[in-house]
Protein backbone atom coordinates (compact mmCIF):
# COMPACT_ATOMS: atom_id res chain seq x y z
CA UNK A 1 0.00 0.00 0.00
CA UNK A 2 1.05 3.58 -0.64
CA UNK A 3 0.19 6.62 1.39
CA UNK A 4 1.08 10.29 1.45
CA UNK A 5 2.13 11.72 4.76
CA UNK A 6 3.28 15.13 5.83
CA UNK A 7 5.71 15.94 8.57
CA UNK A 8 8.24 18.57 9.56
CA UNK A 9 11.70 17.76 8.33
CA UNK A 10 14.51 19.96 9.59
CA UNK A 11 12.04 22.73 10.23
CA UNK A 12 10.08 22.68 6.96
CA UNK A 13 6.92 20.81 6.17
CA UNK A 14 7.32 18.01 3.60
CA UNK A 15 4.77 15.80 1.85
CA UNK A 16 6.01 12.38 0.80
CA UNK A 17 4.39 9.42 -0.82
CA UNK A 18 5.75 6.21 0.57
CA UNK A 19 5.11 2.52 0.76
CA UNK A 20 3.56 1.23 3.98
CA UNK A 21 6.46 -1.08 4.79
CA UNK A 22 9.13 1.61 4.56
CA UNK A 23 11.19 2.55 7.57
CA UNK A 24 11.96 6.17 8.34
CA UNK A 25 15.54 5.64 7.16
CA UNK A 26 14.28 4.43 3.75
CA UNK A 27 12.02 7.45 3.46
CA UNK A 28 14.91 9.80 4.31
CA UNK A 29 17.62 8.22 2.17
CA UNK A 30 15.67 6.88 -0.77
CA UNK A 31 12.58 9.03 -1.13
CA UNK A 32 14.02 12.34 0.07
CA UNK A 33 17.66 11.75 -0.97
CA UNK A 34 18.97 12.81 2.41
CA UNK A 35 21.88 10.40 2.70
CA UNK A 36 23.50 11.96 5.76
CA UNK A 37 21.66 9.42 7.91
CA UNK A 38 23.59 6.13 7.71
CA UNK A 39 22.47 2.53 7.99
CA UNK A 40 24.88 0.20 9.79
CA UNK A 41 23.24 -2.81 11.37
CA UNK A 42 19.60 -2.16 10.56
CA UNK A 43 18.55 -3.63 13.89
CA UNK A 44 18.94 -1.04 16.59
CA UNK A 45 22.44 -1.99 17.73
CA UNK A 46 24.77 0.62 16.22
CA UNK A 47 23.02 4.01 16.27
CA UNK A 48 24.40 5.13 12.88
CA UNK A 49 20.82 5.81 11.79
CA UNK A 50 19.96 8.02 14.80
CA UNK A 51 17.65 10.96 14.09
CA UNK A 52 15.56 13.07 16.45
CA UNK A 53 11.77 12.68 16.39
CA UNK A 54 10.05 15.39 18.42
CA UNK A 55 13.41 16.01 20.07
CA UNK A 56 14.03 12.41 21.11
CA UNK A 57 16.81 10.25 19.68
CA UNK A 58 15.46 7.19 17.86
CA UNK A 59 16.89 4.57 15.51
CA UNK A 60 15.41 5.40 12.11
CA UNK A 61 16.04 1.79 11.02
CA UNK A 62 13.41 0.62 13.54
CA UNK A 63 10.96 3.48 13.02
CA UNK A 64 8.03 2.76 10.69
CA UNK A 65 7.86 5.65 8.20
CA UNK A 66 4.05 6.00 8.46
CA UNK A 67 4.52 6.92 12.14
CA UNK A 68 6.44 10.07 11.14
CA UNK A 69 3.17 11.70 10.11
CA UNK A 70 2.77 15.06 11.86
CA UNK A 71 6.06 14.66 13.72
CA UNK A 72 9.12 16.88 13.86
CA UNK A 73 12.12 15.04 12.40
CA UNK A 74 15.67 16.36 12.66
CA UNK A 75 18.48 14.81 10.61
CA UNK A 76 22.14 15.76 10.33
CA UNK A 77 21.26 17.90 7.28
CA UNK A 78 19.14 20.10 9.53
CA UNK A 79 21.86 20.76 12.04
CA UNK A 80 23.53 23.97 10.99
CA UNK A 81 24.90 26.97 12.78
CA UNK A 82 24.25 30.47 11.51
CA UNK A 83 25.24 31.40 7.92
CA UNK A 84 25.42 27.79 6.82
CA UNK A 85 28.36 27.15 9.16
CA UNK A 86 28.81 24.00 11.20
CA UNK A 87 26.82 23.82 14.40
CA UNK A 88 28.73 24.01 17.67
CA UNK A 89 28.50 20.24 18.12
CA UNK A 90 29.88 19.54 14.66
CA UNK A 91 32.66 22.08 15.20
CA UNK A 92 33.71 20.43 18.46
CA UNK A 93 33.78 16.99 16.80
CA UNK A 94 36.02 18.31 14.00
CA UNK A 95 38.32 20.23 16.32
CA UNK A 96 38.86 17.40 18.78
CA UNK A 97 39.48 14.66 16.23
CA UNK A 98 36.28 12.82 17.12
CA UNK A 99 35.77 11.89 13.47
CA UNK A 100 37.84 9.38 11.52
CA UNK A 101 35.92 7.51 8.83
CA UNK A 102 32.84 9.51 9.76
CA UNK A 103 30.26 6.75 9.38
CA UNK A 104 29.08 6.93 12.98
CA UNK A 105 29.30 10.74 13.12
CA UNK A 106 25.80 11.86 12.07
CA UNK A 107 24.27 9.51 14.62
CA UNK A 108 26.77 10.50 17.31
CA UNK A 109 26.07 14.17 16.74
CA UNK A 110 22.30 13.81 16.89
CA UNK A 111 22.50 11.66 20.02
CA UNK A 112 24.74 14.40 21.46
CA UNK A 113 22.20 17.07 20.54
CA UNK A 114 19.43 15.17 22.33
CA UNK A 115 21.68 14.88 25.39
CA UNK A 116 22.71 18.55 25.49
CA UNK A 117 19.16 19.77 24.92
CA UNK A 118 18.10 18.09 28.16
CA UNK A 119 21.39 18.26 30.08
CA UNK A 120 23.66 21.21 29.20
CA UNK A 121 26.40 20.18 31.63
CA UNK A 122 26.80 16.40 31.38
CA UNK A 123 29.43 14.41 33.31
CA UNK A 124 31.63 11.87 31.52
CA UNK A 125 29.30 9.22 32.82
CA UNK A 126 26.20 11.00 31.47
CA UNK A 127 27.90 11.29 28.08
CA UNK A 128 28.85 7.63 27.94
CA UNK A 129 25.34 6.62 28.97
CA UNK A 130 23.74 8.85 26.33
CA UNK A 131 26.02 7.46 23.61
CA UNK A 132 25.78 3.81 24.66
CA UNK A 133 23.66 3.09 21.60
CA UNK A 134 26.18 4.61 19.19
CA UNK A 135 29.07 2.44 18.10
CA UNK A 136 32.30 3.82 16.67
CA UNK A 137 34.85 1.45 15.14
CA UNK A 138 37.56 4.08 14.70
CA UNK A 139 38.09 6.61 17.44
CA UNK A 140 38.04 4.58 20.64
CA UNK A 141 35.44 7.01 22.04
CA UNK A 142 37.86 9.13 24.10
CA UNK A 143 37.89 11.97 21.54
CA UNK A 144 34.13 11.72 21.19
CA UNK A 145 33.56 12.19 24.91
CA UNK A 146 36.00 15.13 24.85
CA UNK A 147 34.16 16.64 21.89
CA UNK A 148 30.81 16.39 23.63
CA UNK A 149 32.27 18.17 26.66
CA UNK A 150 33.70 20.86 24.41
CA UNK A 151 30.35 21.22 22.65
CA UNK A 152 28.61 21.60 26.00
CA UNK A 153 31.07 24.33 26.93
CA UNK A 154 30.58 26.10 23.60
CA UNK A 155 26.86 25.88 24.08
CA UNK A 156 26.94 27.37 27.58
CA UNK A 157 29.45 30.10 26.78
CA UNK A 158 29.38 32.56 23.85
CA UNK A 159 29.67 30.70 20.56
Amino acid sequence: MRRTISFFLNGSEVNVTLKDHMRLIDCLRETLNLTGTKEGCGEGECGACTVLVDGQAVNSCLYPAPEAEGKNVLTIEGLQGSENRLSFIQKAFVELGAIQCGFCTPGMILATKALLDSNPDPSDQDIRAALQGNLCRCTGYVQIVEAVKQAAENMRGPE
Partner: protein
Amino acid sequence: MSRFSYHKPKTIDDALQLKNEKRGAVYIAGGTDVIVQIKNQELRPSALISLRNIPGLAHIEVNGGARIGALATISDIIQHPTLAQAFPLLMEAARRIGSVQIRNVATIGGNLCNCSPCADMALPLLVLEAKVRLRTSETTREVPVEDFFKGPGESCLLSDEIMTDILLDAPDVNTIAVFMKKGRVKMDLAVASVAVLLDMEGDLCRKAHIAAGSVAPVPRRLREVEEKLEGTILSEQTISEAQKIAKSSVVPITDIRSTEDYRREIVGVFVKRSLERALEWSHK
Protein backbone atom coordinates in the same frame (compact mmCIF):
# COMPACT_ATOMS: atom_id res chain seq x y z
CA MET B 1 11.99 -5.78 4.21
CA SER B 2 8.95 -7.87 3.46
CA ARG B 3 5.83 -6.03 2.36
CA PHE B 4 2.95 -5.35 4.67
CA SER B 5 0.18 -2.80 4.98
CA TYR B 6 0.37 -0.43 7.94
CA HIS B 7 -2.64 0.64 9.97
CA LYS B 8 -2.96 3.37 12.57
CA PRO B 9 -6.26 2.89 14.39
CA LYS B 10 -7.32 5.63 16.80
CA THR B 11 -9.34 3.46 19.19
CA ILE B 12 -8.93 0.05 20.80
CA ASP B 13 -12.11 -1.15 19.15
CA ASP B 14 -10.83 -0.23 15.69
CA ALA B 15 -7.57 -2.02 16.42
CA LEU B 16 -9.41 -5.15 17.55
CA GLN B 17 -11.63 -5.06 14.48
CA LEU B 18 -8.66 -4.71 12.11
CA LYS B 19 -6.93 -7.62 13.82
CA ASN B 20 -9.97 -9.79 13.32
CA GLU B 21 -10.42 -8.77 9.69
CA LYS B 22 -6.84 -9.08 8.47
CA ARG B 23 -5.36 -12.54 8.33
CA GLY B 24 -1.68 -12.54 9.26
CA ALA B 25 -1.85 -9.13 10.92
CA VAL B 26 0.37 -8.36 13.91
CA TYR B 27 0.16 -5.58 16.49
CA ILE B 28 3.10 -3.21 16.71
CA ALA B 29 3.93 -0.92 19.64
CA GLY B 30 7.48 0.51 19.68
CA GLY B 31 8.53 -2.02 17.05
CA THR B 32 11.94 -2.73 18.55
CA ASP B 33 11.19 -6.45 18.59
CA VAL B 34 8.73 -6.62 15.68
CA ILE B 35 10.86 -4.74 13.11
CA VAL B 36 13.96 -6.77 13.99
CA GLN B 37 11.95 -10.00 13.69
CA ILE B 38 10.65 -8.92 10.26
CA LYS B 39 14.15 -8.03 9.12
CA ASN B 40 15.40 -11.45 10.20
CA GLN B 41 12.41 -13.11 8.53
CA GLU B 42 11.25 -14.68 11.76
CA LEU B 43 8.00 -12.81 11.27
CA ARG B 44 6.19 -12.23 7.95
CA PRO B 45 3.08 -10.23 8.73
CA SER B 46 0.59 -9.28 6.03
CA ALA B 47 -0.28 -6.16 8.03
CA LEU B 48 1.01 -4.24 11.03
CA ILE B 49 -1.58 -2.68 13.31
CA SER B 50 0.01 0.13 15.26
CA LEU B 51 -1.19 0.77 18.80
CA ARG B 52 0.81 3.99 19.04
CA ASN B 53 -1.93 6.40 18.03
CA ILE B 54 -4.61 5.30 20.47
CA PRO B 55 -5.03 8.11 23.01
CA GLY B 56 -4.59 7.18 26.67
CA LEU B 57 -2.78 3.88 26.19
CA ALA B 58 0.54 5.37 27.26
CA HIS B 59 -0.79 7.06 30.36
CA ILE B 60 0.89 6.49 33.76
CA GLU B 61 -1.07 7.06 36.95
CA VAL B 62 0.38 6.78 40.45
CA ASN B 63 -1.87 6.89 43.49
CA GLY B 64 -0.40 4.63 46.13
CA GLY B 65 -0.37 1.82 43.58
CA ALA B 66 0.05 2.47 39.89
CA ARG B 67 -1.57 1.92 36.55
CA ILE B 68 0.89 1.97 33.69
CA GLY B 69 -0.48 2.08 30.15
CA ALA B 70 0.92 -0.76 28.05
CA LEU B 71 2.14 1.75 25.46
CA ALA B 72 4.19 3.75 27.97
CA THR B 73 7.77 3.75 26.75
CA ILE B 74 10.70 2.75 28.90
CA SER B 75 11.76 6.42 28.83
CA ASP B 76 8.27 7.50 29.99
CA ILE B 77 8.73 5.19 32.98
CA ILE B 78 12.21 6.51 33.79
CA GLN B 79 11.12 10.14 33.48
CA HIS B 80 7.88 9.86 35.43
CA PRO B 81 8.04 12.22 38.43
CA THR B 82 6.66 9.87 41.10
CA LEU B 83 6.70 6.31 39.77
CA ALA B 84 10.33 5.66 40.69
CA GLN B 85 9.80 6.76 44.25
CA ALA B 86 7.00 4.24 44.78
CA PHE B 87 8.58 1.48 42.68
CA PRO B 88 12.36 1.88 42.57
CA LEU B 89 12.76 -1.63 41.13
CA LEU B 90 10.86 -0.65 37.97
CA MET B 91 13.26 2.22 37.52
CA GLU B 92 16.32 0.03 38.07
CA ALA B 93 15.19 -2.45 35.43
CA ALA B 94 14.09 0.24 32.97
CA ARG B 95 17.42 2.05 33.11
CA ARG B 96 19.26 -1.12 32.14
CA ILE B 97 17.27 -1.70 28.95
CA GLY B 98 18.97 -1.09 25.61
CA SER B 99 20.16 2.38 24.65
CA VAL B 100 18.50 5.80 24.83
CA GLN B 101 17.28 5.28 21.25
CA ILE B 102 15.67 1.95 22.17
CA ARG B 103 14.19 3.20 25.46
CA ASN B 104 12.59 6.18 23.70
CA VAL B 105 10.33 3.89 21.64
CA ALA B 106 10.30 0.47 23.35
CA THR B 107 7.15 -0.01 25.44
CA ILE B 108 6.55 -1.90 28.67
CA GLY B 109 3.64 -3.76 27.07
CA GLY B 110 5.80 -4.79 24.12
CA ASN B 111 8.45 -6.04 26.50
CA LEU B 112 5.93 -8.35 28.17
CA CYS B 113 3.96 -9.36 25.04
CA ASN B 114 7.13 -10.32 23.19
CA CYS B 115 7.56 -13.00 25.87
CA SER B 116 11.30 -13.29 25.74
CA PRO B 117 12.90 -15.27 28.59
CA CYS B 118 15.09 -12.20 29.11
CA ALA B 119 12.36 -9.51 29.18
CA ASP B 120 13.81 -7.13 31.77
CA MET B 121 10.58 -5.42 32.84
CA ALA B 122 9.07 -8.78 33.73
CA LEU B 123 11.30 -9.21 36.78
CA PRO B 124 10.23 -6.20 38.86
CA LEU B 125 6.61 -6.88 37.86
CA LEU B 126 6.90 -10.51 38.96
CA VAL B 127 8.25 -9.70 42.42
CA LEU B 128 5.77 -6.82 42.82
CA GLU B 129 2.98 -9.27 41.88
CA ALA B 130 1.63 -6.96 39.18
CA LYS B 131 -1.35 -7.78 37.01
CA VAL B 132 -1.90 -7.06 33.35
CA ARG B 133 -5.25 -5.98 31.91
CA LEU B 134 -6.16 -7.61 28.62
CA ARG B 135 -8.97 -6.60 26.28
CA THR B 136 -10.93 -8.09 23.42
CA SER B 137 -14.05 -6.63 21.85
CA GLU B 138 -16.17 -8.63 24.32
CA THR B 139 -14.08 -9.09 27.43
CA THR B 140 -11.67 -7.40 29.79
CA ARG B 141 -9.66 -9.59 32.15
CA GLU B 142 -6.87 -9.14 34.65
CA VAL B 143 -4.10 -11.72 34.76
CA PRO B 144 -1.17 -11.91 37.22
CA VAL B 145 2.09 -11.33 35.32
CA GLU B 146 3.24 -14.70 36.60
CA ASP B 147 0.46 -16.47 34.69
CA PHE B 148 0.87 -14.34 31.57
CA PHE B 149 4.00 -16.09 30.26
CA LYS B 150 3.53 -19.54 28.78
CA GLY B 151 6.84 -20.21 27.01
CA PRO B 152 9.47 -18.46 24.88
CA GLY B 153 7.45 -16.16 22.58
CA GLU B 154 4.20 -17.49 24.03
CA SER B 155 1.73 -15.79 26.33
CA CYS B 156 -1.84 -16.30 27.36
CA LEU B 157 -2.93 -13.53 24.94
CA LEU B 158 -5.82 -14.55 22.68
CA SER B 159 -5.26 -13.85 19.00
CA ASP B 160 -6.89 -10.41 18.93
CA GLU B 161 -6.35 -9.50 22.57
CA ILE B 162 -4.62 -6.21 23.46
CA MET B 163 -2.75 -5.50 26.66
CA THR B 164 -4.00 -2.14 27.88
CA ASP B 165 -2.54 -1.68 31.37
CA ILE B 166 -0.13 -2.96 33.96
CA LEU B 167 -1.57 -2.71 37.47
CA LEU B 168 0.46 -2.45 40.66
CA ASP B 169 -0.80 -2.45 44.24
CA ALA B 170 0.66 0.02 46.71
CA PRO B 171 4.05 -1.32 47.80
CA ASP B 172 4.77 -2.47 51.36
CA VAL B 173 6.63 0.29 53.12
CA ASN B 174 9.47 -1.72 54.59
CA THR B 175 10.68 -3.66 51.59
CA ILE B 176 14.22 -3.72 50.28
CA ALA B 177 14.62 -4.08 46.53
CA VAL B 178 17.61 -5.11 44.42
CA PHE B 179 17.91 -5.57 40.63
CA MET B 180 20.96 -7.15 39.01
CA LYS B 181 21.65 -7.83 35.36
CA LYS B 182 24.55 -9.18 33.37
CA GLY B 183 24.79 -8.58 29.62
CA ARG B 184 27.77 -9.20 27.35
CA VAL B 185 28.08 -5.46 26.90
CA LYS B 186 26.20 -2.74 28.71
CA MET B 187 23.24 -2.15 26.41
CA ASP B 188 22.70 -5.83 25.70
CA LEU B 189 19.94 -8.30 26.34
CA ALA B 190 20.61 -10.04 29.63
CA VAL B 191 22.75 -13.15 29.98
CA ALA B 192 20.95 -13.43 33.29
CA SER B 193 19.13 -11.06 35.61
CA VAL B 194 17.57 -11.15 39.06
CA ALA B 195 15.11 -8.98 40.99
CA VAL B 196 14.73 -9.36 44.74
CA LEU B 197 12.15 -7.81 47.07
CA LEU B 198 12.56 -8.52 50.78
CA ASP B 199 10.59 -7.57 53.83
CA MET B 200 13.15 -7.51 56.65
CA GLU B 201 12.88 -7.03 60.37
CA GLY B 202 16.47 -6.66 61.50
CA ASP B 203 18.12 -9.81 60.15
CA LEU B 204 14.85 -11.70 59.98
CA CYS B 205 13.50 -12.18 56.48
CA ARG B 206 9.73 -11.98 56.78
CA LYS B 207 8.91 -12.17 53.12
CA ALA B 208 11.01 -12.87 50.03
CA HIS B 209 10.05 -12.42 46.39
CA ILE B 210 12.76 -13.37 43.93
CA ALA B 211 12.52 -13.52 40.15
CA ALA B 212 15.09 -14.42 37.50
CA GLY B 213 15.34 -13.86 33.76
CA SER B 214 17.14 -15.78 30.99
CA VAL B 215 17.44 -18.91 33.09
CA ALA B 216 14.17 -20.67 32.20
CA PRO B 217 11.79 -20.70 29.20
CA VAL B 218 10.02 -17.69 30.76
CA PRO B 219 11.00 -15.08 33.36
CA ARG B 220 9.88 -16.61 36.64
CA ARG B 221 9.82 -16.54 40.42
CA LEU B 222 12.34 -18.70 42.27
CA ARG B 223 9.83 -20.19 44.72
CA GLU B 224 12.23 -22.75 46.21
CA VAL B 225 14.63 -20.00 47.20
CA GLU B 226 11.82 -17.84 48.58
CA GLU B 227 10.51 -20.68 50.73
CA LYS B 228 13.97 -21.36 52.10
CA LEU B 229 14.41 -17.72 53.11
CA GLU B 230 11.05 -16.76 54.53
CA GLY B 231 11.04 -16.80 58.32
CA THR B 232 14.79 -17.33 58.60
CA ILE B 233 17.57 -15.13 59.90
CA LEU B 234 19.77 -14.01 57.03
CA SER B 235 23.34 -15.06 57.73
CA GLU B 236 26.37 -16.15 55.74
CA GLN B 237 25.08 -19.70 56.00
CA THR B 238 21.46 -19.12 54.92
CA ILE B 239 22.61 -16.88 52.09
CA SER B 240 24.98 -19.53 50.83
CA GLU B 241 22.20 -22.13 50.99
CA ALA B 242 19.92 -19.81 49.01
CA GLN B 243 22.67 -19.44 46.43
CA LYS B 244 22.89 -23.22 46.05
CA ILE B 245 19.15 -23.63 45.69
CA ALA B 246 19.00 -20.82 43.11
CA LYS B 247 21.72 -22.53 41.05
CA SER B 248 20.02 -25.89 41.09
CA SER B 249 16.44 -24.72 40.62
CA VAL B 250 16.91 -22.89 37.31
CA VAL B 251 16.92 -24.49 33.85
CA PRO B 252 18.94 -22.21 31.58
CA ILE B 253 20.01 -23.00 28.03
CA THR B 254 23.19 -22.47 26.04
CA ASP B 255 22.80 -20.00 23.16
CA ILE B 256 24.84 -17.36 21.37
CA ARG B 257 24.84 -15.09 24.42
CA SER B 258 26.07 -17.52 27.03
CA THR B 259 26.21 -21.09 28.32
CA GLU B 260 23.95 -23.02 30.63
CA ASP B 261 26.67 -23.40 33.26
CA TYR B 262 27.62 -19.75 33.28
CA ARG B 263 23.99 -18.64 33.60
CA ARG B 264 23.46 -21.02 36.52
CA GLU B 265 26.56 -19.66 38.21
CA ILE B 266 25.55 -16.02 37.65
CA VAL B 267 22.06 -16.52 39.05
CA GLY B 268 23.52 -18.05 42.20
CA VAL B 269 25.96 -15.18 42.56
CA PHE B 270 23.23 -12.57 41.94
CA VAL B 271 20.99 -14.11 44.58
CA LYS B 272 23.86 -14.14 47.04
CA ARG B 273 24.91 -10.54 46.33
CA SER B 274 21.33 -9.26 46.45
CA LEU B 275 20.76 -10.87 49.83
CA GLU B 276 24.06 -9.54 51.15
CA ARG B 277 23.13 -6.08 49.98
CA ALA B 278 19.68 -6.34 51.54
CA LEU B 279 21.21 -7.40 54.84
CA GLU B 280 23.58 -4.45 54.73
CA TRP B 281 20.72 -2.04 54.09
CA SER B 282 18.54 -3.50 56.82
CA HIS B 283 21.32 -2.65 59.29
CA LYS B 284 21.32 1.00 58.24
